[in-house]
């Protein structure tokens, strides 16, 4: 089973590298999808540049989402912040329910075209899984363990940093993973407001009815999402093993 996993991972990576670095290789495969001699391989920019820009967009948005959602999640699980839980939950939920396209439509008149409105949409959209998992992770820490930590004389800060946070980390990471993967796909809409990213390839395909472009852009985004999802899964398991929640 393990061998199969490694092979699938290596295969995915190779395919991704080929799509980004050697797009010409796929010309024979994609050619039948084009009409009237349209180009089969995206020719309006470097796929590598677009992939890096896409990853950068998602990375910045996810880091910002994570900082916001973690801070909020930690705050509302402290006794002093407990009363803000319902309010915070409502706000975060709106961020998730409000479609990113609508956020773009509202943000563009306010902040202009480009990366900024896209980041706003992605940050809002990515909050919920991290926020909810932070709360769940911290709440699920065995109360006996916290009681023991208090009884040993750990300060509130030490209890949080040394005990609660490490024990909640696997669950928090699961939320982060979900958020990143969702945003990997969602980031493609940024191209409608001129944010650089893989959405450009897909949109170019849509505008010129070029299925080959759509497939190319879609495949790269999907492979990125799957591989990152998988890498995070490995990380989570390593962290959970260290947290003593699963056997080594």
């Amino acid at each position, binding site marked *: 089973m393990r061998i199969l996993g490694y092979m699938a991972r290596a295969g995915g990576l190779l395919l991704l590298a080929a799509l980004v670095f050697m797009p010409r290789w796929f010309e024979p495969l994609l050619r039948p999808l084009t009409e009237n001699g349209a180009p089969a391989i995206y020719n309006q920019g470097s796929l590598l540049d677009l992939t890096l820009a896409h990853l950068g967009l998602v990375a910045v948005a996810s880091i910002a989402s994570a900082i916001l959602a973690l801070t909020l999640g930690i705050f509302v699980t402290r006794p002093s912040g407990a009363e803000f839980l319902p309010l915070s939950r409502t706000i975060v939920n709106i961020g998730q329910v409000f479609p990113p396209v609508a956020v773009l439509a509202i943000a563009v008149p306010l902040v202009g075209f480009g990366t900024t409105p896209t980041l706003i949409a992605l940050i809002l959209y990515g909050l919920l899984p991290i926020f909810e998992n932070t709360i769940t992770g911290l709440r699920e820490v065995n109360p006996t363990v916290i*009681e023991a930590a208090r*009884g*040993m004389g750990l300060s509130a800060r030490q209890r949080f940093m040394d005990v609660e946070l490490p024990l909640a980390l696997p669950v928090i990471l699961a939320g982060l993973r979900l958020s990143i993967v969702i945003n990997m796909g969602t980031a493609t809409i940024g191209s409608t407001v001129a944010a650089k990213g893989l959405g450009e390839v897909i949109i170019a395909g849509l505008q010129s009815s070029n299925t080959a472009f759509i497939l190319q852009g879609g495949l790269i985004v999907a492979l990125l999402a799957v591989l990152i999802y998988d890498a995070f899964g490995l990380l989570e398991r390593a962290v959970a093993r260290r947290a*003593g929640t699963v056997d080594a």
Partner: protein
Amino acid sequence: MIEIEHVSRRFGTTLAVDDVSLTLERGTITAVVGTSGSGKSTLLRMINRLIEPSSGAIRIAGQDTASLSGEELRRGIGYVIQGHGLFPHWTVARNIATVPVLLKWEKARIDRRVSELLELLQLDATVYANKYPHQLSGGQQQRVGVARALAAEPAVLLMDEPFGALDPIIRSQAQADLLALQRRLGVTVVLVTHDMEEALHLAGHIAVMDGGKLLQFASPAELLARPKHGFVERLIGTSDRPFRLLSLRSVADAVEPGDAEGRPVPDTTTLHDALADLLWRQATSLPVMSADGAIRGRITMAAILARAGAPAVSSPPE
């Protein structure tokens, strides 16, 4: 010495602990017993200020516990709870080192102390020091919990139903280990338990609580002989009283000169177990041997039975 003076604790409208005064001598084991909700844990947790008293004062070795910060106080007091509460993401060694690390001991000193404790609690350091709590049996986890509580050499050890989660065989082993450990270290132990048997077996003094009040504070023998009328009597269970009384004394207290047939019983056996032995073997007397194996006399059924009755002077009716 722990002095508890007119201590009360209120939670909203419930008075969890109601004006309790108690003095626990240094180097003794005191058991706190009572039904669920009687305020045992609350009383215990007020000693290390996990719960602050609503009124009253607690002094340890003459020092008012309120004069320290709660964290400082707790680092100086061992605390063991049911279900051990070991940190699952830390190894056994790191768990045991919790308080020494908080106290910023040097690494070499911490390492030495951890090995010492592992040995004291009969856990092979080469096997267990780097294991995680979930890789240990319940009994081993419980021992690591005790080692962790003793790590910084506290003078006081608080235990809240420490053996509650163990099966009967492991539990009696853990009780024996605690007795030996306490004698060796001379630490003052306060033990909350549901189990009257456990209290009678381990404690030098027993505090009986009901509805937040301290009903009686007495030695096991005293408690059995003269239980306060009502709740304490019911808690002890009148039908078992003679046998419990016999459990408190050893054959050495009742040995008499003379010969007897059969396999000798050690003089450290409780009278309760000696009686069981006599009954099982259908004998009226058995030889008694001391620790070195020498025969020092015999134990008779009559001598045991004579010690199973109510003391001559019973408490005046209330």
